[in-house]
């Protein structure tokens, strides 16, 4: 074996983005932890992992990770309460600003969401492979280890778009969405209650019965996320760079024109740029984290399961086909998403 070094990430991008993040983020948190039980960690956008506690602040781009006995409740600054169930990886996006709409999603596991602010400002809710628009809603979202997302609406209305089909749900309605497929039939979830572990295990068994079809659906979802990272990266980079230049200009103005002119530049130019760049960065980071989480918690898990099932038969044709699809999408992920990550993200 030959030792290899971890590829260097574009350090300037990360440093500038985090500087903007910490500057603007210090002013307001995007969520606050209001309840904790068991093991709950917050993995911050800077890659630091800290134990969640009552009153802990959570910023857009952070992930809440609960262990098998951990649970947490968050108050979102955008309005709404989220209860994160055990064994869940939950991603927080920022407070809506300008063109950005806040989003809440689980990479795997489950959470319940209750919106309690003024209508019209609801976040998008879902998983890394499915997203729903909500209106005055209380709902529960389950995300299985194969990426299947199940929505159960308790109050209000939910609309889910997937693969060209829109499904509308009302109170007591439920639906399951498989990765890369249209939403299934709407059903009354009260008549089909689930135990998450049993449901998840059944879906993994189904995956193993047709792994190549399943990985194709997941690859399509990952390609869509990579497309979004590719499309939004220039805008996010440009806004970060603009804020950085405005900060450099602040020193130049202070030197040349004095404190009053610098104060005016700070208030009129630098602060709005920082806020806008922060909102763009957090929104973009949510997409990057979604791709990372899809790889880390869904693709890797499924790949490990099938590698385990065929551990002593590594040349099985089904395993070869599975790897071909997975390696293809991962090659693109490594090229486009990974340069946006730092080692402490994983």
């Amino acid at each position: 074996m030959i030792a290899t070094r971890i590829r260097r990430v574009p350090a300037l991008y990360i440093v500038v983005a985090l500087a903007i993040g910490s500057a603007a983020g210090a002013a307001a948190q995007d969520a606050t932890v209001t309840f904790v039980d068991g093991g709950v960690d917050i993995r911050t956008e800077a890659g630091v992992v800290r134990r969640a506690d009552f009153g802990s602040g959570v910023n857009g781009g952070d992930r809440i990770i609960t262990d098998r006995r951990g649970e947490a409740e968050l108050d979102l600054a955008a309005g709404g309460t989220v209860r994160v169930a055990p064994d869940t990886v939950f991603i927080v996006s920022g407070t809506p600003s300008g063109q950005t709409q806040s989003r809440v999603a689980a990479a795997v596991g489950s959470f319940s969401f209750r919106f309690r602010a003024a209508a019209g400002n609801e976040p998008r809710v879902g998983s890394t492979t499915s997203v729903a628009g909500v209106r005055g809603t209380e709902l529960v979202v389950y995300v299985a280890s194969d990426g299947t997302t199940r929505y159960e609406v308790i109050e209000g209305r939910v609309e889910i778009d997937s693969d060209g089909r829109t499904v509308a749900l009302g109170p007591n309605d439920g639906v399951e969405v498989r990765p890369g497929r249209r939403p299934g039939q709407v059903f009354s979830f009260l008549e089909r209650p689930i135990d998450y572990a049993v449901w998840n295990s059944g879906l993994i068994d189904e995956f193993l019965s047709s792994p190549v079809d399943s990985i194709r659906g997941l690859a399509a979802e990952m390609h869509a996320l990579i497309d979004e990272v590719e499309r939004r990266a220039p805008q996010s980079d440009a806004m970060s760079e603009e804020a950085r230049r405005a900060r450099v200009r602040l020193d130049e103005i202070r030197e040349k024109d004095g404190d009053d002119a610098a104060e005016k530049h700070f208030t009129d130019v630098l602060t709005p740029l920082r806020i806008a760049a922060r909102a763009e960065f957090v929104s973009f980071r949510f997409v990057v984290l979604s791709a990372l989480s899809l790889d880390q918690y869904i693709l890797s898990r499924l790949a490990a399961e099938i590698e385990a099932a065929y551990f002593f038969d590594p040349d099985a044709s089904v395993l070869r086909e599975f790897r071909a699809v997975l390696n293809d999408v991962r090659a693109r992920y490594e090229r486009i998403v990974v340069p946006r990550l730092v080692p402490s993200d994983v």
Partner: protein
Amino acid sequence: MKPRMIAIAAVAVLISACATVPPSTRDDRVADVIGLLADAPIPSVVEQASLPFLFTDQVVSSESDLTAVLTRFRSAAVTIDPVPGASTPAPGAPSGSRFDVAVFYDRLPDDARFVRVETGAGPLTIIVGGSRNRRPLLMGILRGAQ
């Protein structure tokens, strides 16, 4: 110096030497871990494992995922010989590794080792390192002899 003092000093040196020998380099401790992998209840194996865990070339990140993967591995596996085979210091990540795999190798402790394990269907390699309950942690399972 009295013979009794010399004996006490020798025992003290021996004890301190044992305390600084990493469990991953001690065959008896590694054999304990292989024994767990062979036939202990899966929760006991997970208890002695570390996260993230490398399974073939996939990085498993959560306890529940590792439980599922080891359960699947156990159902596919054949008899595992509990006697450790050749052991070497863990190398760096293979050339061309993905990001998550490279990070995994980068974080391995200094005492991490690759240990060859014989099974009824051919060899496999386990990665052991660190320590818990005086035994090395199980950090990964790789196909074949590495």
